[in-house]
C-alpha cells in the first residue's frame, strides 16, 4: 500500500511508465497503421519476407480502384448505411418507449418484466440465429433491408441503458410538466428525450457501430452480392484474389472509414452517456 502511495505522490509518470504506455500504444495502433499503409502497397511489398513495414516499391493507389471493380462497393455501401440507419433508429425508438414504460408508468410486475428484458441480454445471439433465419427466409425477406434489420429492431441493452438514465431524471420536472397539462406523449418528446440526449447519443452510437460491424447475420440473410453489406463484401475480396493483400486492405480501409469518423466525433457522447445516471 505504501508503495502505491509514494508512487502516486512523487513522480507523476516516470520514464518507465511512458515506455510501457508507448509500447502498448504501438501494439494497439499497429494493425490500423499496417491496414492503412498496406492498402497502398503493391504485391512486391506485401508478399516479401520479412514483410515490408512501409511501401518500399512505390505507392499503389490503384488497389482502391481494383477493390471497387471486384465487388459492387457502391451498392454495398448503400446497403450498409441503410441497414445501420434503420437498426439505430429502431433501437432508439423501441428502447426509449420501453424504458419510459419501466420508469414512468404504473406497470404491474414491473421488476419481473424488467428481469425478462435483462435476460435477453444473456442469451447469446447465435443461439437464436436459426429460428431467425428460417423465419426471415420463409417470409421471403432475404436480400432485403427488412430481412437484414428486423431481428435487431429491439434490444434489452438499449432499454436497460435508457432506464438507468431515466431513473435519475428529476421527478420535480415531471410533476411540473404534469401540472402544466402535458400528457405522456408530450412529456416524453418535449421534455424527457431532449434532456436525455447524452444517453440517447450513446445508445445511438453503440447501435450504429455494432450494426455497421455485423457479420454473421448479413452473411446468412443475403446472397446476391449487390444486396450484401460492405462487411461481407470485403471478406469476398479475400477469397476472390488471395495474393493481393493490398487490395483487400484497401477494401477494409473503405469499410473502416465511417466507423472511425463515428468514434472520433462520438466518443465524448459515449463516455458521457454511459456514466450518466451511474452516480446520482
Amino acid at each position, binding site marked *: 500500500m505504501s508503495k502505491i502511495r509514494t508512487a502516486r505522490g512523487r513522480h507523476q509518470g516516470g520514464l518507465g511508465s511512458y515506455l510501457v504506455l508507448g509500447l502498448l500504444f504501438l501494439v494497439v495502433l499497429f494493425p490500423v497503421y499496417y491496414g492503412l499503409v498496406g492498402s497502398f502497397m503493391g504485391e512486391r511489398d506485401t508478399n516479401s519476407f520479412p514483410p515490408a513495414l512501409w511501401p518500399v516499391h512505390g505507392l499503389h493507389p490503384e488497389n482502391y480502384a481494383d477493390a471497387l471493380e471486384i465487388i459492387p462497393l457502391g451498392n454495398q455501401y448503400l446497403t450498409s448505411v441503410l441497414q445501420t440507419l434503420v437498426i439505430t433508429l429502431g433501437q432508439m425508438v423501441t428502447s426509449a418507449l420501453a424504458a419510459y414504460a419501466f420508469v414512468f408508468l404504473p406497470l404491474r410486475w414491473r421488476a419481473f418484466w424488467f428481469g425478462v428484458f435483462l435476460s435477453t441480454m444473456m442469451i447469446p445471439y*447465435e443461439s437464436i440465429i436459426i429460428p431467425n433465419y428460417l423465419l426471415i427466409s420463409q417470409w421471403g425477406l432475404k436480400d432485403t433491408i427488412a430481412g437484414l434489420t428486423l431481428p435487431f429492431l429491439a434490444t434489452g441493452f438499449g432499454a436497460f441503458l435508457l432506464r438507468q438514465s431515466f431513473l435519475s431524471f428529476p421527478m420535480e420536472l415531471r410533476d411540473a410538466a404534469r401540472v402544466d397539462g402535458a400528457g405522456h406523449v408530450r412529456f416524453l418528446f418535449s421534455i424527457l428525450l431532449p434532456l436525455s440526449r447524452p444517453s440517447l447519443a450513446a445508445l445511438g452510437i453503440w447501435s450504429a457501430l455494432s450494426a455497421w460491424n455485423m457479420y454473421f447475420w448479413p452473411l446468412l440473410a443475403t446472397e446476391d452480392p449487390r444486396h450484401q453489406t460492405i462487411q461481407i463484401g470485403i471478406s469476398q475480396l*479475400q477469397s476472390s484474389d488471395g495474393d493481393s493483400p493490398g487490395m483487400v486492405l484497401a477494401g477494409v480501409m473503405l469499410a473502416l472509414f465511417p466507423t472511425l469518423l463515428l468514434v472520433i466525433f462520438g466518443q465524448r457522447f459515449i463516455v458521457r452517456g454511459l456514466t450518466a445516471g451511474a452516480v446520482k
Partner: protein
Amino acid sequence: MPLITPQLFFLVVVGTIHALQSFGQIKILTVGGPEGTTTTLVYSIYEQAFANNNSNYGYASAQAMVLLLVVLAITAVQFGVLERKVFYR
C-alpha cells in the same frame, strides 16, 4: 486495483461471453481448419446449418442450446466464485 474490481469483473464476464461467441475471425482466417481444430461451437452451428447447403437445422439448434447452457453455466460460476473478490463500495 481493489477499487476497480467491479469494472474488472464486468469486463471478465462480458469478455468471456464474447470470446465464446467467436465467429468472424474463424470464418475469415481459418475456416475451422486444419482438421477442425479451430472450429468453435458457433462456427460449428454455422457449418451444420448453413455451409454447403447442409440445412442440418435440428442438430445446429441443439448445439445452440448447448452454447446457451455453457454460457449460462460459466457466467454463473464467475458470479459465484469471482464476485466474492469484487469490492463494491
